[in-house]
Structures are given as C-alpha cells and as structure tokens.
C-alpha cells in the first residue's frame, strides 16, 4: 500500500475579523498518498487558500491535526516549521516569485542555502539537475526578465523540486499563463507525476483540474466532493490546440 504523505484530520481554521469569528475551514479531513496528483478546487472564499497555507506549513490550524510525512505540525516551533517547509514542501506560486536580477540557476539554488545538510559544492549540481528536469538546461544563466512566463514558471518548479520535497504545492500555478502555456506547464506536472512526485494543485479552473487524478472540491470551508477523475493528457490537449490553430 502507498505511503500517506498528507493526512488532514478534522481541520478547523477560525479568523477573527473585528468582533466576528469567520470559519474558513470547518472540519476538513482527507489523505493524500504518495504518487497522487490532486487538484483542490473551489471558488474564492471557499477556504482553499487557507487550506493551502496550512498544508504549506505557513499557517497553523485552530483545531484538528495535520500530519505531513509522518510529522504532526501540532506543537512545532516557528523554526521547526521553517525547516519542515524547506525539506518537505516545494511551493509553486501563481506569480512565480523569482528574485529579480538573479539568474535562473541562482534562483533554483536558493532553497539549498537554507538547507544545511547540502554542502556548498553540491548546490550548483543539484540546481542544474532540477533545471534539466524542467527542460531549461540551456537557460541557466538567464535573468527572469529574459524569460517568458512559462519559462519563469518552469524555473519556479525547478526551485520547488531542488530539495527533493515529499510534495509539490502549486497555488494557481497556471493562473498567469495563457491556455497554451498552461497546458505546457500541466504537461510538465504530469511528467513529474509519472516520475512519482506527489502533487497538490490548487486551482479554480475546471479544465485545468481535468489533468489531475483526483479532485477535491471545497465550498464554505467544507469538502463537498472528493473523487478520482478520468485524467486527460495535457500533451494531447496541447496537440489538439495546435490542430485547431491550423484549421
């Protein structure tokens, strides 16, 4: 049986806005196993961002428990959470969040600076490998402003992969890209999934969600749908898009 990467148990998150309590999450429970490619869907206000923040160890739940790779985040200190983010989680953001005026390879190296177990001389090697994995081996010395949006997102994915995390957390990773580039990025995610990576993909676009293997749908802080779906191939969708153009 596959290993549990994420286990979320009865998660609650309450924000205090003025004198009112806002329940962003009301008892969310699910498990993501190794090798899954899960999309987390929901409209804005559904609680998916809050959930993602907790899954990414950026925020702590008000109730319930969250176990990542066997580690419960209950009672962890801020520094322990930071270390957890560094070793176990790879973030991919909507707006890439690359350092300006910094080459692609230096951007990818960044997480390794905060990982004391990686010796300095290994950094460059690992960053090169990660860039190769996303197909940017000949763009290593380019600055972000010399790269297209899709390429920038690939650099960000390489950065997320470089510490060999147990899970990739993507937050609207295709939100800033056109359809074609979105499909290319999804195709890259599918490749990574085939290589055994575990991915959680937050999105509000239904067509993007069809490229994943399982859909979790949130509404008003609760899960209203959680089921495996018939996965489409992003590569095929891309080919179809090309055909359409030629017509």
């Amino acid at each position, binding site marked *: 049986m596959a290993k549990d990467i994420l286990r979320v148990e009865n998660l609650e998150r309450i924000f205090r806005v003025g004198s009112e309590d806002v329940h962003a999450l009301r008892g969310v429970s699910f498990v993501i196993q190794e090798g899954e490619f899960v999309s987390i869907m929901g409209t804005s206000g559904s609680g998916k961002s809050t959930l993602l923040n907790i899954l990414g160890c950026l925020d702590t739940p008000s109730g319930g428990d969250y176990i990542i790779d066997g580690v419960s985040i209950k009672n962890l200190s801020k520094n322990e959470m930071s270390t957890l983010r560094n070793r176990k989680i790879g973030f991919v953001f909507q707006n890439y969040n690359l*350092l300006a005026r910094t080459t692609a390879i230096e951007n990818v190296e960044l*997480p390794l600076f905060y990982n004391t177990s990686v010796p300095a001389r290994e950094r460059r090697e690992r960053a090169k490998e990660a860039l190769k994995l996303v197909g940017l081996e000949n763009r290593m010395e380019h600055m972000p402003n010399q790269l297209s949006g899709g390429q920038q997102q690939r650099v960000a994915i390489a950065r997320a992969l470089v510490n060999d995390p147990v899970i990739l957390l993507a937050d609207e990773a295709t939100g800033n890209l056109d359809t074609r580039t979105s499909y290319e990025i999804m195709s890259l995610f599918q490749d990574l999934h085939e290589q055994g990576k575990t991915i959680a993909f937050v999105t509000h676009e239904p067509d993007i969600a069809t490229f994943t293997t399982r859909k979790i749908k949130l509404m008003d802080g609760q899960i209203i749908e959680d089921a495996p779906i018939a996965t489409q191939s992003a590569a095929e969708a891309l080919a179809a898009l090309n055909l359409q153009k030629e017509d």
Partner: protein
Amino acid sequence: MNIGNLIKIAISSLFRNKMRTALTMLGIVIGIASVIAMVSIGQASTQSVKGELSSMGSNMIMVMPSRQHRGGVDMGMSTSKSLTNKDLKMLKENTRYVAAVSPNVSTSKQLIYGNNNHSSSISGVDPSYIDIRKLELKEGVMFTDEDVKRYNKVCVIGKTVVDKLFTNGENPIGKTIRLGSIPMTVIGVLESKGQNGMGNDQDDIVLAPYTTIQKRFLGITYFNMLFASATSEEESELAATEITYILRSNHGIKSGDVDDFEIRTQEELVSTMSSITRMLTVLLAAIASISLVVGGIGIMNIMYVTVTERTKEIGLRMAIGAHNRDIKLQFLCESVILSLIGGIIGIILGLIISYAVSRLMKLPYVVSEMAILISFIVCALTGIFFGWYPAKKAANMDPISALRYE
C-alpha cells in the same frame, strides 16, 4: 544557516542594486573620511606647534618679576626691580640643574644706518643667551664675557634688521649702526628662525651685552627678565625649584609669603599649547562625527525602504525555509557590509585628503592609527545599530501576507 552563506546572500543582494548601494555608502564614506581627515589635520597641527615650541629651547626657563601691587593698585609688570645682579651671580654659581642663565633687559630704539632706519626692540643679554634660546650665528661671532664686563658697544642682529638697514647687500659685519644716538658695531648676524607660532617675526632682533643696555641706554641695575636653561628637559622642574629657592632666599621672602617673581618652564607652555590644539582636534572630530551619524541614518532609511520593497522576497525566503533569524541576519549583514565597505573607502579618502591638506598647509603628515581603528569599529557598530530595526521588521513579517504583498 552558516555565516558564509549569509554573507554570500547579502553581497549578491547588494550587487542587485548597485546604484542604491553606492549612494547609501556615500554617506558613510563622507562621514568616515571627514573624521579621519579632521583628526589627522588636528594632530598634525598639534605636532607642528610642539615642534615649534621645542625649537625655541625645550629646557628653557623664564623668570619674570611678579606684578607689583601698591595699596591695591596694580603697578604692572615692568616696574618691578626685584631681579638683580646678585640673583644672576647666585644662579650662575650655586645651582646644579641650571646649565646657563642670562638676564634680559630690553628697550626699544630706532636703528639707523646710512639713509635707512628701522625701529626694533633691543635685548641686553649674556653671551649664553644664544645657547638658551637655541639661536645660531650665520656670520661673525657672539659677544663675550669680556664685552659684558667692559660695556662694549657691540651687537648681534637678526635677518630682518639686516634686510631693513643694509639694503645694498653689504656685509653688515664690522659696520657701525646707530641705536638711537649711540653707535654700535655689528659683530654677528643670526641665522633666520622665521615666524613663531603666534606669527611674530623672530628675526627682528638686536642682541647686545646687558651691561651696555643697562648703563648706556637705561641707567638701571635691575633686569626685566631672566632666561635660564635646565641641564636637560627632564630636569627643568628641578631647575625651576632650585631657582625658586635661591631667589626666595635672596629676596628675603619668608616661608608662607608669596614669591615676588614668576617662573615659567617651556614644558608648561608646551602642555598648554598642546591642550589647546587637542581640544581643537576633539572639536573637529565631533563636528565630523555628526556627518557619520547622518550617514548612519541614511543606511537606516535605505534599509527600511529595502525591507518594504523586498517584502515579497522575504515572504518567498520564508516559504522556502528561511528561519526568522536567517532573514534578520541577512539584512543585518547587508547593512554591516554596506557600512564597512563605506568605512574602508572613507578611511582611504580621509588619508588622501589629510595628505593633500598637509602638503598644502606645510604641516607634518600624521596618520592616526587610533582614529582609523576607532572609525572602523564605529562603522561596524553603525551598521549593526542602524540595521537592527529594519532587519527586525523584516524578520517579524508574516510569510502569508508577505507573499501576497503587492
């Protein structure tokens, strides 16, 4: 995270904003450069004043009669007749630490040679006077004890007097000049000493045997002043004590009564002068350090702007695993590196400025290691002090809102 990585990250961040880095540094550069230059110029002038004073004879002792008071009226200094031949004789014979003594009686007369005339002050002194005052003869000879004994009408003159009287470039030696109505033969010319620290011409001088001045010019038997030299600089205090003792017993002053004379050693003068210039140095350094503070505030200002501007970067670094401490140290490192590099450039610039000024003002070139060391430490502290709050602000950011910051 180890310190090497931190420094690497800090330096690459500084390099990403070269212009801003350079401008921020400029504040520190100017601050440090002005401190270094001011201190070094101040010390150079102290040194030049000291050198000048010791060229006047570092073991010189001056004895002056005290001001006379009669019935509560200050009679001034020159009215006192307390310093006499007896004092001179005793001081010459009965002292151990006094190497030489010369009286000084002075008067002012018009000097005349041919069609030229010049007003100057004339000093009646002992032959040992030129040793005490460290004067040197350029030509001719100094008058002798024999001249003193016979009230001979001979004199030794300074360069300014030569220039004023012997305008045709004649050799003054052997010529007779008139001092008022009395003709005197020039037997020696003094080496030029230029101006002293107060701007007085030290070459406008006529020396004659003190007896000649006393008997032929003034008709007095007392002295205006005594000049003495101690056997060495260290022993000038002992010599002063000795002189005090002899003069007190000569003048019949009972113990407990005040002296009727004043003694000034050159050492006192040197310490007074150098304390003045030292104060000046401190003042200059204080003014210069204001610009250092301004530079420091510049760093703080820029660091605050940087932290706000790089909110997203901070959020990202936190998301990929930077501890709060890493963020704080990174920004602290940036401000310390900024101020240290600024400091090094400032030190070099300060040394260049002080070298240029010393050449321009003909002062000795003094490099103050102390000032360099202190300003280097101040730089590091400036970086830490003014970088601390911006760094703390950065470290305390919430990663979620930092990532969302636009």
